[in-house]
């Protein structure tokens, strides 16, 4: 049995029955990482020693009541882990060892999850391909000539390549859902405020949210149970009771009303993506839900308003990287201002500088009303679109991204083309809503992501819909084949790997 392929709920059953030990499982994951990560490059830092030690402690304690206990997890490298390097995939933080844990890390540790390491990402979570990492690009396990998406590309690739049982990402404009879609796994951005951001390195504070990346919807609900809830350390975390999300795992959508926004199927959306998502709508109809075309007229404007608001907040948040208290400091400076400027110029990559410049400009004297205030007003309109739709519909169904994963290097010279990749996910952040991506088909060998968007704090409904769809289809059972001989070419052949998922069985 290849135990590194297990889901959380499968691993939990085996651990509970003592059919496998936590140490065995942890070792199997590190063996897997050693055999495939040189091709995928999902991890920036591995903590083999710490993970194995933890696994032995867990085995000794013999208490597997909580489903996450003893389950190996990968954490995005912008979430602080005490004593374990947290770089944000940036040169400016390449030596940063946090003296404290993010609330996310505290919650996983208190459930005795085993932290394997920290995953690669676009620097400071700015990007849609993980190519903006200051260290190296991560590759898509389905085709190593393609990107895994981003910015949580390392986390999504690690889940897809079975280099962890589950992973944690962060999502500011699609950074969990888009890579989950590109890698054929499940990724959820919870409602803004559902999960504490304390210890998450801030990019755009009014949009950032932490969430799970998992192999199936059941796992997603289990992780959300562990990480959601009010935290005194984050005053924007919501004081709203956390339900047991696993109670939503019912394969039943009968009577539900689904809105399908026409703006998400227009120009720039790949024909095969469109077809797969419309097929998904038919699956829901067969299960007794009703679908109607709707309009969210401010969809495209959301993208442009985002690219003012996010860089503006980033320019302010990233002002703290000055080479004084932590991180890398430039050598040979003349005075304090020179120290700041040299440190920041050497420490930040091109896209980070671009967004800091854009944001600083948008907030600067004389331009604030024209850009930032205008964008905040457009944000109100985007939110109203959704409010209106949710009066009538239980959830919204659309693609996660306009295309499947693109080739490495394809969009790196054109920021606008890269930004367009987020057109389906950004409005959800702008309105603070929960959204989940799960596989709904393939274009050639590449997975297509289906996005389900819900009302604020209505994660139960989107989990239920996602679960129903997953149970009715087999897309989530298909696994990428990571074959060493063909890793450099687009075509991958593999006899040993399972190839379960073809079509719809609803």
């Amino acid at each position: 049995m290849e135990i590194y392929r297990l889901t959380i709920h499968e691993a939990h059953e085996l651990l509970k029955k003592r059919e496998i030990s936590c140490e065995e499982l942890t070792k199997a994951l590190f063996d897997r990482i050693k055999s495939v990560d040189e091709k995928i490059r999902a991890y920036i830092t591995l903590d083999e020693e710490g993970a194995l030690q933890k696994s032995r402690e867990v085995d000794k304690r013999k208490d597997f009541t909580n489903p996450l206990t003893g389950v190996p997890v990968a954490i995005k490298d912008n979430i602080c882990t005490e004593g374990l390097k947290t770089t944000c995939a940036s040169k400016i933080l390449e030596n940063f060892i946090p003296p404290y844990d993010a609330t996310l890390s505290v919650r996983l540790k208190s459930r005795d999850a085993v932290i394997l390491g920290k995953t690669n990402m676009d620097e400071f979570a700015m990007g849609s391909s993980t190519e903006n990492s200051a260290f190296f690009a991560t590759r898509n396990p389905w085709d190593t000539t393609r990107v895994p998406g981003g910015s949580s590309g390392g986390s999504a690739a690690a889940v897809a390549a079975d280099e962890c049982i589950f992973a944690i990402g962060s999502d500011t404009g699609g950074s969990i859902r888009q890579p989950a879609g590109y890698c054929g796994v499940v990724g959820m951005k919870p409602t803004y405020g559902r999960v504490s951001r304390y210890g998450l390195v801030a990019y755009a504070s009014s949009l950032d949210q932490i969430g799970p990346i998992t192999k199936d919807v059941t796992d997603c609900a289990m992780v959300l149970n562990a990480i959601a809830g009010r935290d005194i350390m984050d005053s924007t975390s919501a004081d709203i009771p956390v339900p047991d999300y696993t109670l939503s795992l019912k394969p039943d959508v009968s009577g539900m009303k689904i809105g399908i926004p026409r703006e998400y199927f227009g120009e720039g959306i790949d024909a095969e993506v469109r077809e797969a998502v419309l097929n998904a709508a038919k699956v829901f109809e067969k299960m007794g839900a009703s679908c109607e075309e709707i309009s969210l007229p401010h969809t495209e404007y959301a993208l442009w308003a985002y690219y003012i608001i996010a860089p503006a907040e980033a320019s302010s948040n990233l002002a703290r990287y000055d080479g004084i208290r932590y991180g890398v400091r430039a050598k040979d400076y003349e005075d304090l201002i020179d120290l700041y400027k040299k440190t920041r110029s050497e420490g930040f990559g091109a896209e980070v500088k671009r967004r800091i410049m854009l944001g600083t400009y948008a907030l600067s004297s004389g331009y604030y009303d024209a850009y930032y205030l205008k964008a905040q007003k457009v944000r109100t309109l985007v939110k109203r679109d959704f409010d209106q739709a949710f009066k009538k519909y239980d959830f919204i169904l659309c693609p996660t991204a306009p295309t499947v994963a693109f080739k490495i290097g394809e969009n790196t010279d054109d920021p606008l083309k890269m930004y367009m990749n987020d057109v389906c996910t950004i409005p959800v952040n702008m309105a603070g809503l929960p959204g989940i991506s799960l596989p709904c088909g393939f274009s050639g060998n590449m997975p297509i992501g289906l996005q389900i968007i819900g009302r604020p704090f209505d994660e139960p409904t989107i989990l239920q819909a996602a679960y129903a769809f997953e149970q009715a289809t087999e897309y989530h059972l298909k696994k990428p084949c990571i074959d060493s001989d063909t890793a450099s070419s687009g075509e991958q052949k593999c006899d040993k790997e399972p190839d379960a998922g073809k079509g719809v069985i609803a």
Partner: protein
Amino acid sequence: MKIEKHTVDHVANLARLYLSEEEKAEMMEKLNSILDYMEKLNELDTTNIEPTAHVIPIKNVFREDEVKESLSLEETLKNAPDRSGNFFRVPRIIEE
């Protein structure tokens, strides 16, 4: 609105960044093409629209000002790029 070179210089200074001439030219070109798209927002009439800073209604949270455990001096200074005793060392900022 078009960004010109002196604006790039001004903004780079505000952002505490040095940019090479090449970087400045590239920044100007890319920022302008991005800002062209931003002009699309002006198609929308937002005269009577309230801005949204936060999507979830939140208010200030007060708590008692109590002394609690915090990071030790050692932990706080552990990541310092330049340390002198119990201080972060920086270049002199007050003229002699």
